[in-house]
């Protein structure tokens, strides 16, 4: 939906008019640079060199689960406590806190799905300079150097990663006030009652030239070095008309970075929810001269990374891979996997700020049927509520919400209505008065309820970090609480950075108070809690039966467990279309698979060509929703002439036909943490040509998509990876060899998509009005043979919307394979379920002949109607 615009009185309007007429870009002056964020400036002023920190080896304690060791800062004699854990699954956790802080420092709760299980560490050797510990398997060792303090993780003779190798560990300890701590940005003053509390640590990654992740930034997939420029910033912000290709903070923050080289993939998870800056530099160093273990020295490319956070502690998880798959599994074991969405949520979503009233909703719904374009969800933005009082309906525009929802249900479609976390201060508004009387609002520094400006005017912000508040919020989604709601109404959380129009950097004052903690400590996780509580509400209202679907704009590590995210308020520009790929790929690398961008662009008005290309791209990205700003002309798919309508219809239909594959990919992501939309290097980790590629992507392993994102394109050059592999154009079935750049001439109808030889992809080629309508339709398997005449794939089926797959194990999960001229389906430990028993068994236990068609020109064999049951074992033999 929306950013920071109008409706705030004439003063703001004027300011905006100026800002907008100048250029269509972010007003950078509204947001801090590192220099304007005093802790970042202080920390960045520290130069690499001798670290003042020394490990006090005599304080070493080694238990079954962890190692503890004190560090001392030789300059000020402040002691830190280092805790080191070897975690199951090839991970190492390093925690550093003050040994005796004046008061506790914030440690981020609710992100890890459990206390990560540990493995024992053992001490191999020790002398006055340091010690060597065994990290269990794979001859991995941890070397602790005492002076200056430094950690190196080695495998064999190879250094995988070093901590504090550049001596940039810096821990601002809590202290008695020794001067003015206040800090001012523009007209906002931060009282900083705890003074300077920032932390910083550096990591060196020898042999690494490519690092990825730390979303959300509108930047390339491969992260750039930040020498001489701004660091990448992680601070959830509502950025009006964000700019592309820069490291400015956006709506969400996931402090996870992946490093990759042909030899190894690793990950760093910096568990800190305060404002964070990340510096990246690359150099070639003579490595190993400090280590006795490394004989000789060799020139190695190296990437150095430095993390700086405003408060909290150092708590970093080092995921040692070694493969991309391993890193995804390791991160998933810490923070959980992608929520398994209802099938319908993977279909097409039609949104606009705003569908004006019930009639408008009915007319748009009708328009889709008239033009025979499928859709599953229609969305309502802030104007649907009564004076932006969420959980209510505008009595004039939406007088009968239940009837409206029933009307959609009759077409087997659904709706999403927005519920934002800013609550109108209005005593006659139940939600507000309850939150206030229960004391659930975030407090300002003086102890009163924090108030700020947002869409409804003066607003309070519920303290979602409080579990009682979250439980109460969840209960508000009960059908008898949320008036006008029905089973087919789902929820969208916007503005949950949180956005505060009159706050510093359009967000909350850092000295606002959440119970014992400052907003400063936990800013980046606020949005996660909002989505968490909302998703819980949707689960509870159905008695725990139905899977929720909640979209969020702000997010943090772990947000993947609660639903979908989108890339916020983009613009109808070709570059914004292009950036959707790296933005969603980056999110996929750090657990968030359910990602999408506003199709068509939120601000401004797309040309028909851009709109069509955006639909074609969006149809192959996980979250597929068209959305538009209030001030833009209408752009429902049929408003651009019959030709463009047909092009959009075709793109949406391609999406629907592939829903079985999408669903299976999401099931897989949910089970294993593997991303749905993947950077090419994830599947081709040795192929350096793929390492910086972000104009094309894979869906799972088997579909390669190179959308057309250039205006007036006559052709695209796609890279087909894999020497010795083959790829089939999914539209023409033409075969192409892997390991080459392929020029593909394109027309307006082209969406270059290729299926990997060796794969079997299930589709439902009967595209109907909505995904629910396709529930009982037959599957068509597309078997693309490898050069060795082999193929395999999977098929996952369940009821599409409940937790029964998990609780009652009601699902079908089949492994499909083609080998030796035989296509077969075998169970992957699935449970045969009642829901599908009604299906007829036409080849039950019998052998039968099948008719077929063979197109010799393209070598395509079509087996006519084998009519086998998806749930049982079967084989088809070609003779």
């Amino acid at each position, binding site marked *: 939906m929306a950013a920071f615009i109008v409706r705030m009185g004439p003063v703001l309007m004027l300011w905006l008019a100026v800002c907008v007429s100048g250029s269509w870009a972010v007003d950078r002056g509204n947001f801090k640079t590192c220099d304007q964020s005093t802790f970042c400036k202080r920390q960045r002023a520290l130069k690499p060199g001798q670290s003042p920190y020394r490990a006090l080896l005599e304080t070493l304690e080694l238990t079954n689960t962890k190692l503890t060791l004190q560090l001392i800062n030789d300059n000020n004699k402040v002691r830190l406590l280092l805790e080191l854990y070897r975690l199951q699954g090839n991970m190492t956790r390093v925690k550093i806190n003050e040994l005796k802080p004046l008061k506790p420092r914030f440690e981020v709760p609710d992100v890890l799905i459990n206390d990560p299980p540990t493995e024992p560490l053992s001490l191999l050797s020790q002398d006055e300079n340091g010690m060597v510990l065994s990290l269990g398997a794979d001859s991995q060792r941890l070397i602790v150097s005492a002076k200056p303090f430094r950690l190196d993780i080695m495998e064999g003779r190879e250094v995988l990663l070093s901590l504090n190798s550049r001596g940039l560990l810096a821990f601002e300890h809590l202290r008695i006030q020794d001067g003015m701590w206040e800090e001012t940005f523009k007209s906002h003053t931060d009282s900083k009652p705890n003074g300077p509390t920032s932390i910083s640590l550096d990591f060196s990654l020898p042999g690494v030239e490519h690092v990825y992740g730390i979303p959300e930034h509108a930047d390339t997939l491969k992260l750039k070095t930040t020498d001489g420029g701004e660091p990448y910033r992680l601070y959830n912000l509502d950025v009006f008309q964000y700019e592309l290709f820069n490291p400015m903070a956006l709506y969400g923050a996931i402090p996870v970075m992946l490093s990759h080289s042909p030899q190894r993939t690793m990950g760093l998870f910096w568990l800190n929810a305060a404002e964070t800056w990340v510096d990246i530099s690359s150099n070639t160093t003579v490595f190993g001269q400090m280590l006795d273990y490394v004989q000789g020295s060799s020139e190695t490319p190296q990437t150095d990374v430095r993390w700086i956070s405003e408060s909290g502690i150092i708590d970093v998880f080092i995921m040692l891979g070694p493969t991309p798959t391993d890193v995804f599994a390791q991160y998933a074991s810490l923070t959980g996997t992608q929520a398994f969405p209802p099938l319908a949520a993977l279909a097409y979503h039609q949104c606009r700020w705003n569908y004006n009233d019930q009639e408008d909703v009915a007319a748009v719904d009708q328009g889709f049927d008239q033009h025979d374009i499928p859709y599953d969800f229609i969305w309502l933005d802030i104007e649907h509520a009564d004076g932006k009082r969420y959980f209510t309906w505008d009595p004039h525009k939406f007088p009968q919400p239940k009837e409206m929802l029933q009307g959609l249900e*009759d077409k087997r479609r659904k709706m999403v209505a927005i519920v934002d976390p800013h609550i109108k201060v209005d005593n006659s508004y139940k939600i507000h008065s309850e939150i206030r009387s229960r004391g659930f609002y975030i407090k300002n520094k003086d102890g009163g309820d924090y108030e700020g400006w947002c869409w409804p005017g003066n607003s309070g912000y519920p303290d979602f970090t409080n579990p009682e508040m979250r439980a109460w919020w969840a209960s508000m989604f009960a059908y008898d609480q949320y008036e006008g709601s029905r089973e087919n109404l789902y929820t969208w959380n916007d503005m949950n950075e949180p956005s505060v129009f009159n706050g510093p950097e359009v967000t909350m004052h850092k000295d606002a108070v959440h119970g014992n903690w400052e907003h400063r400590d936990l800013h980046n996780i606020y949005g996660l809690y909002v989505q968490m509580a909302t998703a819980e509400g949707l689960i509870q209202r159905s008695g725990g039966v139905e899977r929720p679907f909640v979209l969020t704009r702000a997010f943090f590590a772990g947000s993947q467990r609660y639903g979908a995210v989108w890339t916020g308020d983009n613009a109808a520009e070709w570059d914004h279309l292009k950036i959707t790929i790296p933005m969603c790929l980056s999110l996929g690398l750090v657990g968030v698979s359910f990602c999408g961008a506003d199709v068509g662009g939120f601000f401004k008005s797309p040309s028909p060509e851009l709109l069509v290309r955006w639909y074609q791209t969006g149809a192959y990205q996980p979250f597929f929703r068209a959305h538009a700003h209030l001030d833009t002309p209408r752009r429902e798919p049929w408003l651009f002439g019959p030709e463009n309508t047909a092009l959009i219809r075709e793109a949406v239909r391609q999406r629907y036909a592939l829903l079985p594959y999408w669903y299976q990919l999401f099931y897989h992501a949910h089970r294993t943490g593997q991303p749905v939309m993947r950077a090419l290097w994830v599947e081709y980790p040795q192929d350096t040509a793929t390492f910086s590629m972000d104009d094309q992507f894979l869906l799972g392993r088997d579909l390669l998509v190179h959308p057309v994102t250039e205006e007036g394109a006559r052709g695209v050059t796609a890279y087909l990876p894999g020497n010795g592999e083959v790829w089939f154009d999914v539209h023409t079935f033409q075969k192409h060899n892997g390991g080459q750049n392929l020029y593909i001439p394109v027309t307006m109808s082209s969406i270059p998509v290729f299926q990997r030889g060796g794969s079997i992809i*299930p589709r439902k080629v009967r595209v109907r*009005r909505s995904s629910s309508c396709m529930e*009982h339709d037959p599957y068509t398997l597309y078997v*693309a043979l490898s050069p060795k005449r082999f193929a395999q794939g999977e098929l996952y089926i369940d009821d599409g919307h409940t937790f029964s797959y998990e609780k009652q194990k009601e699902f079908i999960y089949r492994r499909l394979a083609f080998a030796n001229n035989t296509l077969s389906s075998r169970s992957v430990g699935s449970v045969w379920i009642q829901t599908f028993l009604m299906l007829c068994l036409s080849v039950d236990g019998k052998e039968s002949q099948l008719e077929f068609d*063979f197109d010799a020109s393209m070598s395509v064999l079509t087996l006519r109607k084998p009519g086998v049951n998806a749930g049982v074992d079967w084989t*088809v033999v070609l003779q």
Partner: protein
Amino acid sequence: MHCPILIAVVIWSSCVDSQKIRGISLSYKRFYRERKSFLCIDGSKLIPFDQVNDDYCDCADGSDEPGTAACPDGRFYCTNLGYRPHYIPSSRVNDAICDCCDASDEYNSHTACQNTCRNLGQRERAEVKSQMRALDQGLRLKQQLIEEGVLTWRDKQAQLRDLQRVLDDLQTQLDDLRKEDARRKKEVDALRELEIGALETEENSHRSHIMNESPVSIFYELDSNRDGRLSAKEVRAKLTDIQDGERVLSEDEAVALLGGGHHVDLSRFEETLWNSIRIGHNVTIRGRVPGRLVKGEPVLKAAVSAAEKAAAELKKVEDAYETVYMEIRDLREKLATDYGPEREFLFLYNQCFQLKVHEYFYELCPFNQVTQTSASGAEVSLGKWGSWAGSPQHRYSQMKYENGEPCWQGPTRNTVVTLTCGTETALRSVKEPGKCQYVAEFQTPVACRPALRQQGVHSEL
């Protein structure tokens, strides 16, 4: 054997009992006579007849599966006995949504559809009947309005002719008055010339006489260029030093006499120079013959006043001419507007129609403008009359009002008014589907077309 590279296999997760002649209209039945084989209607393929409606798409044109959802872009015929038959996309067959009122599209879904054709048919027939009644009444009203329109048109034409006549009269008067005005002005000038000539021949002993003269006549005498004010130049030309009659006054002296300015009007003249002349200590009028003046003054005065009267008369008639001329122009413009083939929309001319929608008050003044007034009283233009904007067949079914107030970040507001047939003339709805793009429904008998009757009759079948 050739190597097949790509294989497509269809797995059924449901089965369909086929019924051969489902989803076909009567006129297509001949293609589906039970035989051994079936030829796709486009002639592309011959298939065994038992593959018709067997829930697998064989024909590229989808003709083998008229009764199932197997073919993309196929269509299914709803017979809808008692109501209207129609085609639906075959993707709507057995999707658990009742599309055909005879329930024939959901023969194998788990949704129990009711046959609602009879009710629908009855309701539609009743509706059509009342619509027809309204249409008939509307057409009668339309006829009246057309006739009224003819009268109005005639009135307007007559009015135009009258106005034209008035304008002609005014033109004649104007001509006369202009001549009169010119004559009067000449007369005054001639009298002045005469006077000046006489003055030049007589002696100057004038002070006491000047005392008796009016400041107005002296003013006009000195105002040699007749611009209604005296300049220093004019003063220097006509006045002379009382001691030295030959001496020309300096610029500074003249300015001082005018009270410090380079120009004076009559009233200022009376406060400044007039006093100097009257008292006669410093300056006097060059070559003044007091005796003549006294004699000639009343004649000139009368001439001046007559010229002034003529000028005023002229001005009055000129104004009247202007007014009538504008009226004629407006009327011509309005008469040039397209009021429909029979000028049936003429009666809307000069009328306005209001509608309140929640907090907003809308006003449509056909062929003029559309406005919106908020509860706070702020009025916003939603567009000024642009043009008829209906489809080429029905040009008069939509009006477009353009160039209203501009929007923030956007274009100017505009409104498309759709005209619908009804027995009353009223604004029925105003909506804003896209920011600043308004659509209104305006109901009026003149939007009724006899063709609508045909459509109504068709839908009755």
